[in-house]
């Protein structure tokens, strides 16, 4: 069964450093997403991406964050100048169809746990 693959599974970084989390979506999917889950809290939407641009973002997704699809397979989340409160599990997801084709069903990766010290 096709999977969304995320690397690294766990990253520890110092406050103020830049972090890049990587994702390989399912190959025929066109829509890409990042979600995060701070320990003990809900899974929260960060951003959706289609056709090489952001299609929707939450209020969490400020200038500290950016996303990119640098090639035909990878989808990255960059966090600049990390803060303690950025410590969380970050989930990448992809979907084949978007919001105008019935239910938009997401396939999620296993997550990347980011710890900021």
């Amino acid at each position: 069964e096709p999977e969304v693959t995320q690397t690294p599974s766990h990253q520890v970084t110092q406050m103020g450093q830049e972090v890049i989390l990587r994702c390989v979506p399912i190959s025929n999917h066109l829509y890409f997403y990042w979600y995060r889950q701070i320990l003990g809290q809900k899974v929260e939407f960060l951003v959706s991406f289609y056709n090489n641009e952001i299609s929707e973002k939450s209020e969490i997704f400020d200038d500290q964050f950016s996303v990119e699809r640098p090639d035909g397979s990878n989808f990255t989340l960059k966090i600049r100048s990390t803060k303690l409160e950025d410590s969380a599990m970050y989930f990448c997801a992809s979907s084949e169809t978007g919001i105008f084709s019935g239910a938009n069903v997401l396939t999620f990766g296993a997550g990347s746990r980011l710890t900021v010290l």
Partner: protein
Amino acid sequence: AQSVTQLDSHVSVSEGTPVLLRCNYSSSYSPSLFWYVQHPNKGLQLLLKYTSAATLVKGINGFEAEFKKSETSFHLTKPSAHMSDAAEYFCVVSDHGTYKYIFGTGTRLKVLA
């Protein structure tokens, strides 16, 4: 605004007994509703989805959920729990016209031998 409430943070059942995980939602429009499961060190796996077709939705591994608009509920059930069902379960709502999923806080299911 959309929201989801999972009424139980932890549920324990004995193997072979029924499972009921409760979810209530709030949505301004005709929502899509989902249940996802997360096993340790695994991704969020789709169990089932509701998209305004049949109100009783069957999913994988013997799970099903019933959409009740009058009660704004989408409870997940399974007739007989198996040890492998032990995991965290998330109820999710998505309104028409948005890419955003709204997650509940999750219910951790424990299955006792």
